[in-house]
């Protein structure tokens, strides 16, 4: 019986060559699994190319960039970016006084710096300081923008565009979060009156469209105030936004509170913490951390909802562009309004998509 024992070490062999399949074959396996799929691929690809090419032609090649009235944009073969460029002030800051504009720029810069700090910090770290920042920042911005004392006062009726959208979104978020947390805690209270009131408020708000709430704030609320009292439209709209989104946030927080097992609370009271301390030190940190991604989603919803302000006559970003297309210099060509809409779509898309990516990153970081 002969045996063979290898005497020398052989060279290491390469791993089985998956890459020896040529790129073409790999591509075919993924895309052309059947004739039907091949046709689908081709049709989709053709649609992408045609649509992309036509959009490029419209948005870049044939676009009009300079000019101060609708004569700058003849025909509809190209986008009318001149409309966006010439009317930068209305859609960026509204009617804010020219000599006070630095306050608006400072607000944008402050928010930009704050947001940069939020995004670059570690996602696994606690969110307490971020949430605190989101509550303090709008208060500071409102003080700077309204003025008073050494700064000249600027009424909110003169704000507009992106500035107003930013302030409304931030202020809504800052007021709706604490209110929502209180409502959520109230719904779980052992005191029946508190529980009923909070439940009635949240469910009532959730069964009505936001537009109806805004309309009530705009038309009906002044009737319920004593004669002579006058709250301006901006503040009323802000109140409506806060109350509506407080109900939304309450449902999110309720979910977070339910996710914390009751044993946590019981254990905390067993080791001698008071009712309030157990809530503050044990339950709330866990509940809030669990719902931070959902809170970012509420922020996205709030940003999209701010467009409703234009319907009740507050000059937000959408309203500023709509009004611009109705101004004497730019009225007439539908292409101008469509260009404005596309421009707005890109802004909202960039902001909301960025936020949704952030929300997803927070979710996976946990």
């Amino acid at each position, binding site marked *: 019986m002969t045996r063979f024992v290898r005497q020398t070490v052989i060279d290491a062999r390469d791993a089985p060559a998956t890459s020896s399949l040529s790129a073409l074959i790999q591509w075919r396996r*993924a*895309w052309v*699994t059947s004739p039907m*799929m091949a046709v*689908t*691929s081709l049709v*989709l*690809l053709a649609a*992408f190319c045609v649509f992309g090419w036509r959009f490029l032609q419209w948005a870049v090649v044939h676009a009009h960039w300079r000019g101060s009235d609708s004569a700058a944009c003849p025909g*509809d073969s190209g986008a009318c970016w001149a409309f966006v460029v010439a009317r930068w002030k209305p859609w960026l800051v509204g009617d804010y006084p020219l000599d006070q504009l630095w306050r608006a720029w400072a607000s944008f810069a402050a928010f930009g710096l704050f947001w940069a700090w939020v995004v670059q910090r570690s996602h696994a770290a606690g969110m307490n300081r971020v949430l605190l920042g989101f509550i303090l920042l709008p208060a500071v911005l409102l003080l700077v923008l309204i003025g008073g004392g050494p700064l000249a006062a600027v009424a909110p009726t003169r704000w507009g565009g992106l500035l107003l959208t930013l302030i409304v979104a931030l202020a809504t978020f800052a007021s709706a979060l604490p209110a929502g947390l209180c409502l959520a805690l109230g719904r779980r209270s052992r*005191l*029946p*009156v*508190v529980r009923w*009131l909070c439940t009635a408020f949240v469910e009532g708000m959730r*069964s*009505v*469209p*936001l*537009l*109806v709430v805004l*309309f*009530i704030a705009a*038309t*009906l609320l002044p*009737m*319920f*105030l*004593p*004669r002579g009292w006058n709250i301006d439209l901006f503040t009323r709209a802000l109140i409506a936004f806060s109350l509506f989104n407080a109900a939304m946030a309450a449902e999110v927080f309720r979910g977070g509170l339910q996710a914390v097992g009751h044993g946590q609370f019981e254990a905390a009271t067993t080791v001698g913490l008071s009712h309030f301390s157990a809530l503050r030190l044990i339950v709330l940190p866990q509940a809030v951390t669990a719902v931070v991604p959902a809170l970012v989603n509420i922020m*996205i919803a709030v*940003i*999209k*909802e701010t*467009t*409703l302000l*234009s*319907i009740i006559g507050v000059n937000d970003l*959408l309203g500023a562009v*709509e009004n611009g297309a109705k101004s004497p210099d730019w009225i007439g060509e*539908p*292409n101008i*309004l*469509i260009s404005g*809409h*596309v421009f*707005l*779509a890109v802004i*909202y*898309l960039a902001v*909301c*998509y960025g936020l*949704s990516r952030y929300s997803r990153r927070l979710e996976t970081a946990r």
Partner: protein
Amino acid sequence: MSRAVLVERLWDYAGQAVLLALVLWLAWSGLVNFLGNVRVLGLAAGYGFLDAEAGFQIAQSLIAFSPRSSYLDVVIVAALNSLLVIVLASVLSTLIGLVMAFGRLASHGLIRGAAATYVEVFRNIPLLLQILFWYFSAIAVLPGVGDSLAFGGALLNNRGLFLPRVQVTMAGGSTLVAGLAAFVGLFWLARRWLKTTARDNGWSLALSGAIIALLCLAPLALMRADFGIDNPQVEGFNVGGGFAVLPELAALTLGLSIYNSTFLAEIFRAGILSVPRGQAEAAATVGLSGVRAALLITLPQAMRVALPPAAGQYQTLAKASALAAAIGYPDIMQLVGGTVLSQTNQALEVMALVVLLYAAINLAIALAVNLLNRRLLWQQR
């Protein structure tokens, strides 16, 4: 009860009493202010205005309406118009959402990419902006009334799509009702029969084919009944006669469908992912094609998970239909909260009506989905 417990409870009761008193005081002083303001402004109160003559025409109504009709009719027309757009958009967004959900899970990279792009783009652009975009684009693209495009008896221009309206007489109406009853009855019988017998032999196929042919013939018989057809016609700068599908309705339906389909797609996708992979594999093993496996095996199980969040999305859609006010589609918000409010000046009564109507629609959706949900869960046993 010990004294300590009693003292502790006392604080609870006192706190609740103070809170209740505060809320009641707020409501009471608001009401007093309101009544005072109403007296100073000299406005009417109560729902007496519902019987009064409205005095304006509505561009789209599903029931007979003229300026002589009452405000109550306005409310009914508005509610029906709202329901119309809600139902249309719900069905359309469900279909698009399903396609996109399966598209995002496809093995084909290009299809996956297209579906993902669609979802990410349209869910992140505000709904109002989308509705305005579709509305103004549609108006810009369509020709004026003078250059209306004609398809058979229908007209298409920037005032909308005008379809021939079928006018039913009394005799025609009763035939129609009888025919519909027969149709429903036959359909029910056929379904019942198909359920109780084996489906895969030639006999049952032939018979079900015959039944379906009969079902298709039944409406044809109705055509013999005397119907009048009211064709739309260009009258100066407007169109008279026919049934108008407004560009506002088209833009609102399109905007609502596309926006909500992205959220539904994510809900359906989560539902599909919750079905164990083995189900689809087993379906493939017993020889079902990809489409049949998806529709018969995966989807029914996915729906159990997806239905509760989808219900919330349908409610969101119903509430978002109030954005009709921005483009002037005659729905609850635009007609009741807008026109009726400005004509009667009775803000409290009118807005209470609007709130009630939306709350009722929301409740109806919740009930319908609950019923459906119970049915789905029943089959699980």
